[in-house]
């Protein structure tokens, strides 16, 4: 029983990370039809800059962590908005080229990160409480999992509130539904594009800081490896659906944890099999709108 609880909560924690990446991907795809390969780089830069900030303030204290998280989110948002403004916007409605540009950006930025911070992982120090465990139903659960879950839920709630109750949220929701119609009504959707990129980038940057705590280190490839699972999550959840991304994140991560434990470390394969199964049974994903 204690193992099941441990796997469940750890899975939820990992799912929280996936969600932070997948939410942005899904929103961006839903509104603009862009598959953003550079999303992993937004996460990595958030993680690195966040770590630099925390290191300079005071290592291992709570407020340094908070500062790191805020900086990570800000940096992610800025870089993402700049990417949209300078690269994606020039290729309006040419989806393949947009994907290609983000691929190029991903390759170049990972190389640049390696050049600046080296190829070896950089170990981070976080507040000592996060490194300890709490006992729930006999399972000793690392505390950082709780923080991941709480932050991801907060981000989910914030994004949902933003989409539901603000004017820009309304434009974004309408744009996902039917972009042509929104443009026809005289609303400049392009500002919404930048905004969506910024939101996705902020979530990814925040995810980067959290990922560095989850793994205990930052490396230039941390974003790329999470990105692949985030892709799987967005396809399983249904492209463009935020709720789908949230549900699929949890399902994928929990499945991965259980397969890793009970089936001899086959978590990654189990996830891909799950993806294949979803595609065979329901090609549009769990909550996807169109095929």
């Amino acid at each position, binding site marked *: 029983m204690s193992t099941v609880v441990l796997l469940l909560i750890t899975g939820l924690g990992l799912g929280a990370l996936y969600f932070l990446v997948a939410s942005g991907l899904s929103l961006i795809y839903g509104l603009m039809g862009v598959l953003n390969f550079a999303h992993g780089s937004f996460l990595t830069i958030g993680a690195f800059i966040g770590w630099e900030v925390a290191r300079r303030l005071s290592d291992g204290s709570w407020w340094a962590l908070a500062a790191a998280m805020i900086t990570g989110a800000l940096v992610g948002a800025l870089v993402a908005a700049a990417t949209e403004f300078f690269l994606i916007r020039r290729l309006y409605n040419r989806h*393949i080229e947009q994907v290609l540009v983000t*691929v*190029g*950006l991903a390759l*170049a930025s990972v*190389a640049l990160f390696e050049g600046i911070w080296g190829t070896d992982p950089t170990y981070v120090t976080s507040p000592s409480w996060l490194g300890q465990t709490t006992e729930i139903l006999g399972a000793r659960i690392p505390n950082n999992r709780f923080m991941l879950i709480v932050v991801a839920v907060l981000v989910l709630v914030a994004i949902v509130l933003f989409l539901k109750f603000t004017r820009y949220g309304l434009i974004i929701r309408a744009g996902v539904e039917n972009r042509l119609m929104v443009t026809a009504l005289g609303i400049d959707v392009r500002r919404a594009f930048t905004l969506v990129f910024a939101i996705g980038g902020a979530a990814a940057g925040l995810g980067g800081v959290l990922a560095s705590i989850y793994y205990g280190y930052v490396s230039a490839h941390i974003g790329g490896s999470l990105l692949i699972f985030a892709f799987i999550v967005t396809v399983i959840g249904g492209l463009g659906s935020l709720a789908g991304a949230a549900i699929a994140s949890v399902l994928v991560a929990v499945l991965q944890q259980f397969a890793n434990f009970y089936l001899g470390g086959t978590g990654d394969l189990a996830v891909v099999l799950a993806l294949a199964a979803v595609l*065979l049974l329901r090609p549009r994903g769990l909550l996807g709108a169109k095929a």
Partner: protein
Amino acid sequence: MRSLWSRPVAKITAGAALVLFMALLPLLNITIPGIFPGATYTPGTLQLLAYAMLIAALALSYHLLFGLAGMLSFGHALFFAAGAYGLGIVLRNFSPTWMPADVTFIVAILITVLIGFVLAALVGSVSLRVTGISFAMVTLAFAQAGSVVVRRNPGGQTGGEEGLTLDVSQVPDSLVGVLNTRNLYWLALAVLVTVYLVVLWVEKSRAGHVVAATRENELRVRVIGIRPYFVRLLIFSIAGALAALAGAAFLLLQSGVSPRVATPDFTLTLLVIVVLGGVGLRWGAVLGAIVYTLLDQRLTALAGSEFIAGLPDVLRIPLSQPLFILGTLFILVVLFLPGGLAGLTRRSAWPHRPKRGSGERMLETEETI
């Protein structure tokens, strides 16, 4: 001059002359400083050229998917890795005593290509159920799974992180050792020519026309009464088999293979190559591969040079990362040179470019349906 020669004849002659020149290269003494590490007969240069040609063969097989069929696959490295690892594993485990060694070797290569075909058919049968961006993500997921399997070293067969070393006892002597690099070079050239001819044949075949039509307008193809699924699957599988062939030759050339070739990043490199050369053109893929490989090699050499080490950090860090320069170059090509390197000449030949980079049609039709 041009009026005397019909275009196809001129093309075939030029192609044959180029292949002949490439075949004679190991016997010549040509030095191009800055591009080749040494004279063309030296093993180092031959190795580099053979490597470039195998990447070109792989890029051609990717061209079948992306250029011809408009399928943006992020999993093509899987089949290349299947070829490289497949041949290594087959050679190690398949040695029937009743068969002469050379025949065993050829049979092993055929089995490897067949593995590539079957694996691609399996992966394709699932991933082709979705189109466009979803297809890209699904193939990426499969490639990632392949990469995980290779790294996990199942049954001690793939060698995990260390990679797999070629068991030379099963390989004909003429393909082993530095002195025989020129034989490997000729092998690579043969693989490239074979792949080129197969790609040409597929493009001119009925299946090739159907997938090209599907790329342009899937709805119309469906209305005519053709189901694009199976034709796409066929093209996907052929591309997989060709990639496996290139992978097998790659194993022989490098006398080993590392898990790097199974990573999704390797597919991204392939995509960069095809786009750099020019999407939709066979020789664009070849050109892109050769330019990319040589650039990569030269930039790596440059990164280690003293000139770079003496620069201030702001310049030194970006310039010492070949991938950073190549990635930036790639972004610039996508933004400002949509036809790639091959498009440079093409644009001057036809001022009104008939079509933009192919491939995007698949996504557009998906949206309009």
